[in-house]
């Protein structure tokens, strides 16, 4: 599904990612952990096509296509979804309005007709229930005045409706109370399928109790310094990151 080879990324003159290698197969869940400022969000942004980053070396192939060459909206229509660490408020654009436009953009991209109004509402309401949200959120402006947790939940709602193939969750669990974490995790789990892959950026083992990853990677100083199974997360919880960072420095 996704193949990242020797990826180097700079912001201006400053190198941030320094040779990332990552292979993600369909149906897999990869957790990415690592200290603050190690480049986790940068990787998420580069995968979703945010401008301001320069790929200086390496490649990213998504479903056999060069991802870096694609415009962000095309990536999204091809199934790449980023749940933002800091979702953006869009005053004046309601959630349903955006969702309908997004869904229709995907359909158009695949040569399908626009979504039927009734089917759309049925789908949206079903997902709202899945995430135990109030239907009123649908008619509010995107993220405007939402609490931190509501914003995160709203990201997962969008994800559930757009049914992407590659879901990148950038610290979706940060700032969620335990009940919200459970609901969001159940939402994510309900989307698990052999055709869908997840990249979950997180600082907390707690999330991985609910969504069990196949692999855990540690990103430090722009490189993946260690990869392992779910047990690596437990080890990190116990020991922190410094022992790994020291290994790299050595």
């Amino acid at each position: 599904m996704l193949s990242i080879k020797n990826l180097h990324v700079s912001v201006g003159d400053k190198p941030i990612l320094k040779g990332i290698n990552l292979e993600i197969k369909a149906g897999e869940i990869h957790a990415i952990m690592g200290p603050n400022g190690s480049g986790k969000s940068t990787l998420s942004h580069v995968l979703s096509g945010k401008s301001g980053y320069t790929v200086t070396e390496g490649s990213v192939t998504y479903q056999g296509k060069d991802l870096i060459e694609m415009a962000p909206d095309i990536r999204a229509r091809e199934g790449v979804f980023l749940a933002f660490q800091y979702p953006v408020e869009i005053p004046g654009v309601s959630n349903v309005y955006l969702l309908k436009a997004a869904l229709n953009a995907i359909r158009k991209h695949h040569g399908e007709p626009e979504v039927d109004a009734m089917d759309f509402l049925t789908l949206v309401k079903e997902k709202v229930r899945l995430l135990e949200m109030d239907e009123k959120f649908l008619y509010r402006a995107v993220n405007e005045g939402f609490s931190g947790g509501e914003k995160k939940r709203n990201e997962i709602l969008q994800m559930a409706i757009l049914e992407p193939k590659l879901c990148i969750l950038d610290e979706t669990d940060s700032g969620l109370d335990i009940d919200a974490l459970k609901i969001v995790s159940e939402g994510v789990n309900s989307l698990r399928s052999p055709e869908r892959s997840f990249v979950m950026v997180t600082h907390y083992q707690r999330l991985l109790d609910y969504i069990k990853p196949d692999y855990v990677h540690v990103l430090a100083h722009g490189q993946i310094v260690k990869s392992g199974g779910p047990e690596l997360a437990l080890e990190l919880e116990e020991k922190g990151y410094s022992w790994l960072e020291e290994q790299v420095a050595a």
Partner: protein
Amino acid sequence: MSAVTASRYPAEYESIAPLLPGQNLPWLQQLRSEALQAFSAKGFPSPREEEWRYTNVSGIEKKLFSVPASQADSEVDDWLKAYQLADAWSVVLVNGRFSAELSTLNGLPDGVSILSLADALATQAAQVQSHLGQAVANSEHGFVAFNTAWFSDGLFVHVPPKQVLAKPIQLLHIVTQADALATTRNTIIIDESAQASVVETFVGADNAYLTAAVTEVFVGQNADLTLYKMQSESEKAYHFGGIYIKQERDARFAHHNFAFGGLLARSDIHADLGHASECVLNGLYLGVKRQHIDNHTRINHLKPYGISRETYKGVLDDKARGVFQGRVIVFEDAQKTDSQMNNRNLLLSVDAEVDTKPQLEIYADDVKCGHGVTVGQLDDKSVFYLQSRCIDEETARNMLTFAFANEMVDKISIKSLHDNVLEQVLARFPQQGVDKEWL
């Protein structure tokens, strides 16, 4: 006296005068001749005048716009279909003259007058006389004097005390002839505790022409008037529209000003507030190509306890230029005034420009007044967020711009007008795959 005048228009006046209404009314002839004199002396406003420094109207003198001999057999069906509000009383003016056939004035409640100004001069001259020129003086500036001398017709509304109108009133102003001069004078009188809403719609064929309108508004004690202005003139047209409002004690007035058309368009909105009266001025100006759109507002808080709320938003693209001059004056007597003014602008291209000048002049000491201005571009983070949700960049930009503008459209409480304005704004900022039901 020197024969040199600042304008070439007075030379035409003699041939036009016999066509104007109110020939048999000495007071009006007197008023017109004073206005002609005032205009002859000064001409149209010059950029040397402080209140006109951003807006140069000399284009009006470059060619001579002339009063159409008749409204002729103009084809106006398309305009009516597109702009005449269903479920409203309407006075339709074509090329500055009233058309009884096109207007809808049946079923007026007793005592309510909605008619053309020319007809009002014929049937209720005393009522017109006691109001015409009372909300604005010819000395205000050249356009007002010009209007008083030249006006060919207009809308006259009188709502008697306590009458609450069930339907809005529309003035539909259509200019079909090239190089036409359409000078209209409107008088709106809302008596004590009465309530009404009036829509002024200005449209025209894809020609150069000049609309010069003055609207005088009298909102009586505890009365309520909402006035809308939908300015969708041709992109080759000159538009001047002055609206002058007198509010009595406890009167409520709201204005919604949609300035979308015109090559050069200027609106002056001046309100005098009485004791505890309330004034809301909302505006949205959208400029493209080389349009120049100027909105000039003045709120005079003359008495205590007045409330004013002003929000103007502008979106300027290409080489368009917007001007916002908003003045709030709190007079010595106007203690406890509560006033807020806001102007927000979105520039969509590097060549677009806006001059914004909010002015607060406070001569009372116990007041609550504030103002704010912003000039900005679309936020890149928001554009990316929408793109990451499958929206193409152009639609994303249009969606954000539309959302910015729609805040003002949303304030329209007449459904048919709301939908009409919404369509116009959506047409400016088209978006793929959306459903406007969910705005």
